[in-house]
């Protein structure tokens, strides 16, 4: 008795009402806009946030060999070189060796790296009056330059006594020192001490550097098409996919609930029910909002694919993952949309809906909490069990499939079957709650009432 034509009409109106809404358009564009702003502004903001630092660094060096090496190791050139090495490592981790060149073609690393601090090394004679030197750290700046740190090098830092290990150093800093200053000094000190130790043994530091440096080679996944693997990329894929899944579901389900509450509170519902059955109305609304969610997902996936191809990283993505994303999206969407639709039909206004929606939202948040452990170890008992427990099974399975060791195919299809069964059950129960709830006004229902309606209808 259900008329597909009426369902399509309801779905069409629902879709048009959603996509022509100003709020939706703003919401749709705001995510890409936020990302664009982050990518465009963050380097500038980060550079701006690390205001140029200048000051004195006092050193007490009984060995007499660390201070000269440190003078060049904390000079602006050396600091810039160290920062570039760190940046290179980070780029390699995220994009893999293949992606480095492409990413380097993008924003200039100098803009990320900021202005190096201006340290002036002040040598204090050893042995020094340590207490007086420490006081210098907290005293008001003398001659406009403040003292940033006091380094006390151990006498045996370069040449250890026979049979004992190398000595180290003590670093004294004033309260509230920027952690980055401390890191720069430690990195510089490490470089200076190593180079002094090598010099003491008549070894050339550049030789040692060449000997110990091994360029990171690409990991290549063997298959029909050989693909370069990127650790950082691989780590982020499960989060991106489960994020898209949850985001897509939430957009559709939330709007479905809001529009149902609006129809009920504006009392247009009874006019609609004189033309369509509750089942036709619910089916139309669910399908209409599904189209809205699919549109949003298509847009975001499209942007993602464009970005990957612009960084020459498209080959890293398995296209089947997108197919499975859509399958899991449909299952998860039908399940949650049914629940949200039923809640919308049961309450009188949005405020009342919040109490019923909160537990459902918490369920949707579970995979977020578990995403990291499941993505790291996708085949633990917990991860496997979650893949078969609705309503989180699709989300858990999506994380596992996007991880580096995907589950066997039978588990994927079993999870899909479980998900389909759960979605059908949810839709069936929701249809009953929908029918009873639509014309119920007055006291807002709780979950027990919804279950009773589902049973009695």
């Amino acid at each position, binding site marked *: 008795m259900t008329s597909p034509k009426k369902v399509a*009409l309801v779905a069409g109106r629902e879709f048009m009402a959603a996509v022509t809404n100003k709020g939706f358009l703003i919401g749709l564009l705001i995510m890409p806009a936020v990302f664009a702003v982050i990518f465009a502004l963050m380097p500038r903001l980060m550079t701006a946030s690390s205001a140029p630092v200048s000051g004195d660094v006092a050193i007490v060096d009984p060995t007499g060999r660390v201070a000269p090496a440190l003078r060049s190791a904390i000079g602006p050139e050396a600091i810039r070189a160290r920062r570039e090495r760190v940046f290179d490592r980070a780029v390699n981790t995220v994009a893999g060796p293949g992606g480095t060149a492409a990413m380097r073609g993008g924003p200039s690393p100098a803009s990320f790296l900021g202005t190096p601090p201006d340290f002036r090394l002040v040598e204090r004679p050893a042995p020094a009056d340590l207490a007086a030197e420490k006081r210098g750290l907290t005293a008001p700046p003398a001659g406009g330059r403040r003292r940033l740190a006091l380094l006390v090098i151990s006498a045996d830092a370069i040449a250890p006594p026979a049979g004992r290990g190398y000595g180290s150093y003590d670093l004294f800093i004033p309260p509230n020192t920027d952690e980055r200053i401390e890191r720069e000094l430690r990195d510089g000190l490490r470089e200076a001490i190593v180079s002094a130790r090598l010099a003491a043994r008549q070894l050339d530091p550049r030789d040692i550097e060449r000997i110990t440096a091994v360029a990171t080679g690409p990991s290549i996944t063997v298959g029909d098409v050989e693909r370069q693997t990127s650790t950082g990329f691989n780590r982020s894929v499960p989060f991106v996919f489960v994020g898209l899944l949850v985001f897509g579901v939430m957009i559709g389900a939330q709007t479905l609930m809001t529009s149902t509450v609006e129809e009920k509170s504006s009392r247009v519902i*009874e006019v609609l029910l*004189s033309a369509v059955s509750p089942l036709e109305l619910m089916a139309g609304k669910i399908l209409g909002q599904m189209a809205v969610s699919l549109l949003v997902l298509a847009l975001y996936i499209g942007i993602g694919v464009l970005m990957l191809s612009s960084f020459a990283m498209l080959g890293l993505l398995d296209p089947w993952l997108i197919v499975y994303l859509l399958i899991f999206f449909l299952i998860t969407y039908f399940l949650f949309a049914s629940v949200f639709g039923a809640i919308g039909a049961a309450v009188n206004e949005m405020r009342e809906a919040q109490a019923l929606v909160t537990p459902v939202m918490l369920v949707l948040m579970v995979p977020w909490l578990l995403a990291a452990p499941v993505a790291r170890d996708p085949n633990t008992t917990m991860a496997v069990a979650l893949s078969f427990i609705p309503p989180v099974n699709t989300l858990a399975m999506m994380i596992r499939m996007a991880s580096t060791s995907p589950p066997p195919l039978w588990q994927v299809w079993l999870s899909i079957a479980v998900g389909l069964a759960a979605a059908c059950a949810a839709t069936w129960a929701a249809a009953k709650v929908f029918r009873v709830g639509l*014309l119920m006004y007055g006291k807002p229902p709780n979950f027990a009432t919804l279950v009773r309606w589902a049973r009695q209808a």
Partner: protein
Amino acid sequence: MMQAIELRDVRKTFGANVAVDNLSLAVPRGTVCGVIGPSGAGKTTCIRMIMSILFPDSGSVSVLGRASALEAKDQIGYLPEERGVYRKMRVGAFLTYLAQLKGVSREVAAARVPALLEQVGLRGTERTACDELSKGMLQRVQFVGATLHEPELLILDEPFSGLDPVSVRLLREQMRTAHARGATILLSTHIMAYAEELCDHVFMIHEGRKVLDQPMEGLKRQFDPRTLVFEPLHPRADVAAIRAMPDVERVEEQGAGYVITLVAGADPSLALARIAALVPPARIEIGRLRLEDVFVRIVAGGGGLDEAAAALRSRLQAGAVEEARA
């Protein structure tokens, strides 16, 4: 005659509250029938069951020869008591959408909308958003929504509620047009004067039960009020002579004049002439049947102005006063 609507022994409860009890009624095709009763009598529940929006606990409903309104939705026009629109939608788009849901093609609906809006005094509002219209205008839009697909059966739940006199007149004209086209109309109202004017047949419902089911003609005969409404030419005129007339049962003051009740069997036209001869009248006429009086007489079980009847009357009038305020 084939029935447009038939209810047999229908009962509907909400928890412990019996909304409709053992109700049977038949609406013949082509008639204008009124379901009347005070607010809370069970009229809306009854109509929602006819529309298959609610389902009876027991009993059966048939609409336009089908087992349920669900099978005949496209032939029914419905104006619910709880009226609403999509506030952000334009009037034309909203009406076209409703018509499409009722099986009318988009082109036909779009062609009918401007003419129908003009008929209810809303010319040129097709592109206006619904939330820019006043309440009365929206009710007229909703009436157009109920009739746009030219239904065989038009069910109107409290159609005049909250309307200004101009809107009431426009809606009555539209109802007459629909009826002239051959549509059967079922009208629910707690304002009995509208039913007196518009209906061929009335069903009175009180506390979920049917207390009256008669054609208006029969009602007029059965519940002949035997009253004359009289206003003397001189406001302080003595009416003792009228009270003393053998045809007169009692004389009660009402506003600027009097309501004269005749004894059973008295000839109103003769009485009229005699009274006019005794006291010069500014106005004198035979009292018309008032459904309110019929209702009170049936429910209170006598016709006298005892406490129960007075309470009922005040309940009925309270509804009408609220309407007037709205």
